[in-house]
């Protein structure tokens, strides 16, 4: 149905894609995997008409295409679900779904038709709780994802590209998405599925194409391969131990941070203790209050009730500065808008915190920063490179370095490895563990249960703004999910 033949693309004379060939059959899920920077996004952007290839052809049902604008790609039956949603917060769901292809009657936009068809679409991919007339900005991220999908399906697509569709979703939401994907393929759609999450890939795809450094290394039938092979071809090396060993009991030391009865308008009854050397994991669905908890600890959206101590001293930070002074650091979920000043150099980013809140030991020297950047194993053109042009993994490393420069006692990670490729992931995990060993108290929030289970010495589960349970290291996904979904999931199971 779709064939991309010998596609190459260079930016400013540097090859990004070397003669990549890819084909897609109707009703097939074709997974596209590879580390960040392997060229997946570029390939998809070419398919989406955002970039035009230097060489190579795109053929759909035998007719060749050369897209110069996304509109053309869409009109030839290609639907894209972008990793960063292309949604307008202040427009309604319907307006977003039909953006760029509004139904017209006698030259006028036919709102009624638009809303009707939106409703139909939403029903089709059976979602509830979204109505066509809602403002997108009033929807939670997971819901916005649905809108993005509906948008892609609004035009009669035959090829659907999903770029990291589950990145913002919690596991049970991911499963609903998987179900949807199956329904769509059943209707004969071909789906190009990009993901870092191998389990998903294996659960859904019929074939897997691996990209590395802009080249296609392999296209494998999912049935005949396994995660190790895929990873091997992705990173060109074995990754046996995904997660570093957990802390031994004697490594866990004094209380670094405690909260009792903490709460604000989003979370309540928070009792929490973070100890030196310990990595605590927070599990929970999107919107369960995980992020709010981290931000409350960091004073960004402060606790309004309850008591909190940091390093033994009572302190309930009212704004980040206080938290930072007390030695708390927060690696936020949204790297690009909250973690980095994208147009500043790596060095300026690494120095940002210490410049804003001079640490007691005096600001770090240039040498110290260089050392830090080396420690987080940053791969960049140099300290003068703009953060904008680093890969997701390296950007995350810069963010971490920025906080380490402030010599924190408590490290809060919100989705530490979202959109980070396998190689960098491992590096981050090892680093986190090292830091714990050095006596930092670490808190990790993650939608990726394997990561959470792999990293945490203790797992707390959140639901509806409260901590609903604590599980020991190595707890299994099942029990975590039961707590996270307030048991409902278990119930359904029994019923089924």
């Amino acid at each position, binding site marked *: 149905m779709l064939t991309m033949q010998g596609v190459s693309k260079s930016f400013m004379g540097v090859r990004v894609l070397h003669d990549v060939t890819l084909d897609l059959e109707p009703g097939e899920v074709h997974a596209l995997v590879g580390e960040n920077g392997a060229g997946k996004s570029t390939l998809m952007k070419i398919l989406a008409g955002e970039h035009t290839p230097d060489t190579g052809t795109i053929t759909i049902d035998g007719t060749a295409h050369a897209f110069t604008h996304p*509109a053309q790609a869409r*009109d030839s039956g290609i639907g894209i679900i972008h990793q960063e949603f292309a949604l307008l917060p202040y427009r309604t769901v319907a307006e977003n779904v039909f953006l*760029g292809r509004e139904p017209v009657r006698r*030259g006028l936009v036919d709102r009624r038709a638009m809303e009707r068809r939106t409703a139909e679409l939403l029903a089709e991919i059976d979602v509830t709780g979204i109505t066509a007339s809602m403002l997108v900005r009033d929807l939670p991220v997971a819901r916005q994802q649905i809108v993005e999908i509906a948008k892609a399906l609004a035009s009669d697509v035959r090829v659907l590209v999903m770029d990291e569709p589950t990145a913002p979703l919690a596991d049970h939401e991911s499963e609903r998405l998987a179900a949807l994907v199956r329904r769509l393929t059943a209707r004969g759609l071909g789906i190009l599925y990009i993901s870092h999450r191998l389990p998903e890939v294996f659960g859904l795809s019929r074939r897997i194409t691996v990209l590395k450094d802009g080249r296609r290394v392999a296209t494998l039938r999912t049935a005949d391969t396994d995660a190790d092979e895929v990873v091997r071809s992705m990173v060109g090396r074995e990754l046996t131990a995904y997660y570093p060993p957990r802390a031994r009991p004697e490594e866990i030391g004094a209380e670094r941070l405690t909260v009792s009865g903490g709460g604000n308008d989003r979370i309540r009854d928070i009792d929490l203790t973070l100890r030196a050397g310990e990595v605590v994991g927070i599990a929970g669905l999107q919107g369960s209050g995980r992020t709010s908890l981290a931000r409350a600890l960091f004073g960004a959206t402060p606790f309004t009730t309850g008591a909190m101590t940091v390093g033994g001293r009572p302190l309930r930070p009212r704004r980040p500065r206080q938290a930072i002074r007390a030695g708390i650091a927060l690696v936020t979920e949204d790297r690009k808008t909250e973690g980095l000043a994208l147009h500043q150099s790596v060095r300026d980013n690494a120095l940002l915190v210490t410049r804003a809140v001079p640490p007691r030991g005096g600001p770090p020297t240039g040498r110290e920063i260089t050392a830090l950047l080396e420690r987080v194993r940053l791969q960049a053109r140099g300290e003068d490179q703009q953060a904008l042009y680093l890969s997701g993994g390296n950007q995350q490393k810069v963010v971490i370095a920025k906080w380490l420069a402030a010599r924190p006692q408590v490290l809060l990670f919100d989705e530490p490895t979202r959109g980070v490729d396998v190689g960098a992931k491992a590096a981050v995990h090892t680093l986190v563990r090292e830091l714990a060993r050095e006596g930092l108290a670490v808190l990790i929030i993650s939608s990726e249960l394997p990561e959470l289970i792999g990293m945490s010495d203790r797992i707390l589960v959140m639901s509806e703004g409260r901590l609903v349970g604590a599980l020991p290291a190595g707890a299994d996904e099942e029990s975590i999910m039961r707590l996270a979904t307030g048991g409902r999931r278990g119930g359904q199971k029994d019923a089924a």
Partner: protein
Amino acid sequence: MTAPRPLRGRPLRVRALVPAAALLATGLLASCTSDAPPDAPAAPGSTAATADGPGSGGQSEFFEQAEYERQLALAKEQPQGPADKPWEQMLRPEFTDTTRYKKDTAGGVHLCFSNAGVFNPWRQVGLKNMRAEVGLHKEITEFTVLDAQGKDDKQISDIQELTGKGCDALIVSPNTTATLTPAVEQACAEVPVIVFDRGVETDCAVTFVNPVGGYAYGAVAADFLVEKVKPGGKILALRISPGVDVLETRWSAAEVAFDKSELDVVDVKFTDGDPAKTKSVVTDALTRHGGIDGVWMDSGATAVAAVEAFEDAGQDVPPITGEDQQDFLQAWQDKKLTAIAPAYPTFQWRTPVIAALKILQGQQVPKEWKLPQPSVTEDTLDEYLRPGMPPLHYAMCGCADLPGFPEDWGGKG
């Protein structure tokens, strides 16, 4: 099938809509009530002090030979009226009967004034004069001033508003000559109208008060340079900005004089009335022409800046023309300049009030009330230069005898 079509279609729609609306509105409603005068504004040949509109020969579309000669003649004549009160003097008056406007002023007079604006010191001094003059006449019980802030559109509405306010007489200082004609004609139908400073292209006003005019101003300045600067000397002409009729006439007259002379006008520059820019312009001119032998200015606002530019460049100040602005006169005296300051006297702001009262008393007034337009010269400098006045004060304000002088004018007693 997506974007292109509507995108191309849409502008057409608007392009069609707007004129359609306009024409429809005009066409369909032409029959309805109209505030406009029945027919087109009076043709040229009006009494406007400064002819304008489409070119009437000459090197500038502002140059009108007849008017030019008339003004030069007037400038030489002896005005009638009290010698010590130039604002009551008049040149070649052709009196017009005003009995039909006669009104019992015992009940108090409501005088209205539509002002173009107070956007420059000249107008500010002027307005003070007028208010003070009003203060002199107890019979004026109400004096309403609407300020158009330099917007023709607003002044038109102001005039309409004032005609509806039951004024006994309406004084108008037009912001632009041509554009206010219809509004003024409209007002003429309701109340006696006194126009001053700029004219309008209609003679419906009872009287039009203005000094001799721009040609005389420009000519006086130019002739002075012709006399003082050696033949072949380089003249720098500094103008405020193009498109201001009053200033255009001054320049066109000067051009005539320079063309006849041996002098060489090396540069004509616009300064936007900004002293800083003036200094730059002069400095550049000095470097560019290696010296300037005379400076002609179409108004005094930036004269001092020009003088300073010469000083800063370490050169002697050549013969220069300015205006009766305090700071220039001061510099003139201090620096012993060779200079002349033709004036566009601010005392003309007093006259309309006097005229209004005359009209309401049925006394006849000149159809065009031409005021004298003396210049400040070497000999008269001391008499006009009054110490303690603010730098942007205009000496020829005829305000020395007014109550509240000099404090209200910002001076020190």
